[in-house]
């Protein structure tokens, strides 16, 4: 549905120039949700703005639904843009129009009758769950509601493609999830192809089929979300995955921790589960095989893309020899193991 081929973009300021995008090729199949993740400044916004030519690439081609947008004249491009919806981080609703008026705007452009507009806006309000706010002004709405209006407005001309430019980045986590659910619903219900950019792995994990990582203007990794979580190869990809976990050693433990083992101390380990980890009940096996006890301090393990991944903080109680053997066992089963320190027992 969306095909980018060999896109290059440079920005010039005075004598210096910055390469924003380098040789980007991307394919979003019809009906799929693709997410592009990258740190700020990686070129995400520039990339998504290439798709509807809000910014023109210096080189390369942009195909949407089989049509090469680079070859269109101004009038044809305006027409083509009406078949693509776009939503933004800051919503960009008209403050002078009500919710109804905002959603009606794209329909006014294509010469729909008043009656048709009223009916279509009614359907869209129902789809995004804002039937009772039709006459409200955007300033009276919450962030989540504003984004719902923006989504309804983007969907009004029945586009085939929806572009989401950091659509949830200005929203709190709960609202983010409700907006993501809505995007997923319209993807399934209307068969809409969605391309989104984000800096949050959670967004990718929650709704995307495909993912690509953008770093310093280059696509460094791409594939299905399933394979991404199990086989992410580049350090940046791993970093993004790790950023979704929030593990901290409790203060009390930090105070009692030493970097070397001593009498009456037990190792505190961080166990990392990845796509390569052998799928067995490894914790209880270790307890049985090596006759040790394991106390889990905290855990953040998730299931996404068909694999378990995440981290555990755990104390291993046993003799030094037993603990060493258990650690070996974990490593053999492809658990990433890191000894964070040795904790003295409270006496």
């Amino acid at each position, binding site marked *: 549905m969306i095909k980018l081929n060999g896109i290059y973009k440079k920005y010039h300021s005075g004598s210096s120039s910055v390469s924003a995008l380098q040789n980007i090729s991307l394919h979003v199949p019809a009906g799929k949700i693709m997410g592009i993740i990258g740190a700020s400044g990686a070129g995400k916004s520039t990339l998504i703005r290439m798709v*509807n030519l*809000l910014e023109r690439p210096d080189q390369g081609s942009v195909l949407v639904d089989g049509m090469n947008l680079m070859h269109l004249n101004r009038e044809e491009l*305006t*027409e*083509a*843009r*009406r078949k*693509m*919806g*776009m939503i*933004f981080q*800051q919503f*960009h609703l*008209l*403050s*002078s*129009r009500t919710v109804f008026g905002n959603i009606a*705007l*794209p329909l*006014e*452009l294509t010469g729909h009758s008043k009656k048709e507009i009223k009916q279509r806006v009614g359907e869209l309000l129902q789809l995004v769950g804002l039937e009772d706010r039709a006459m409200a*002004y*955007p*300033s009276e709405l919450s962030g989540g509601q504003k984004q719902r209006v923006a989504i309804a*407005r983007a969907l009004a001309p029945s586009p085939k493609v929806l*572009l989401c430019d950091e659509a949830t980045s200005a929203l709190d986590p709960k609202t983010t999830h409700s907006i993501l659910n809505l995007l997923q619903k319209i993807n399934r219900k209307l068969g809409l192809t969605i391309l989104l950019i984000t800096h949050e792995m959670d967004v990718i994990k929650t709704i995307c089929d495909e993912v690509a990582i953008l770093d310093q203007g280059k696509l460094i990794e791409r594939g299905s979300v399933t394979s991404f979580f199990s086989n992410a190869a580049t350090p940046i990809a791993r970093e993004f995955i790790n950023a979704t976990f929030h593990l901290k050693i409790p203060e009390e433990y930090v105070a009692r921790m030493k970097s070397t083992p001593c009498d009456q101390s037990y190792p505190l380990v961080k166990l990392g589960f990845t796509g390569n980890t052998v799928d067995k009940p490894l914790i209880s096996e270790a307890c049985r095989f090596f006759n040790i006890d394991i106390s889990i301090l905290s855990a953040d393990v998730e299931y996404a893309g068909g694999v378990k991944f995440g981290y555990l903080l755990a104390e291993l109680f046993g003799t030094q020899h037993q603990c060493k053997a258990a650690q070996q066992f974990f490593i053999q089963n492809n658990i990433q193991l890191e000894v964070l320190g040795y904790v003295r027992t409270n006496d």
Partner: protein
Amino acid sequence: MSEPMIKLLVAALGETMLMVFFSTLVASLLGLILGVILHITRPGQILPLPRVQKTLEMLVNAGRSIPFIILLVAIIPFTRFIVGTSIGTVAAIVPLTVAAIPFMARLVEGTLMEIPSGLMDAAQAMGLRPFQMITKILLPEALPGILNSVTITMITLVNYSAMAGAIGGGGLGDIGIRYGYQRFDATVMLVTVLILILLVQFIQSVGHYLVKKFDHR
């Protein structure tokens, strides 16, 4: 105050209102158009035309730098061309309008600049044509600011109209100068000033009410 004096003041109020009303009407319209052109021809805007922009910019600056009392007499031939005479209340409307157009244009331009650029991105992404961007986005979004600009322009014109006496335009300012200042009639001076204050208060209140009514930001 004598009865003829009161009659004189009432007539002068009528003249002031006539001058201010018509010059505001025309200057607001033309100033709005000029302000929109100044804005959209900037680089990165809807219709970037750097040369047109630079030229208009210079004209507006030139217009705003001429003191009104000089403009009033300097454009007498133009005034005569437009209304057939260079003397009287109707003749005064021409220089008042000419002075107010660049003033209004600048105010409108400032208002348009405050519209978030993201809104124009959204408009472009939705497939609005350039003209639709002006009528459906720029003007409605700037409406409160435009109404405020009209109010400020109108009050400035009340001020300028005081100088219309120089070409026989009459009005409250003229009474104030001739009777209040030149004849040392403190009562007349005070009354004209009071009427002017009330007039400006009234214009400001109406303007404020309209801005509030249309402002949904």
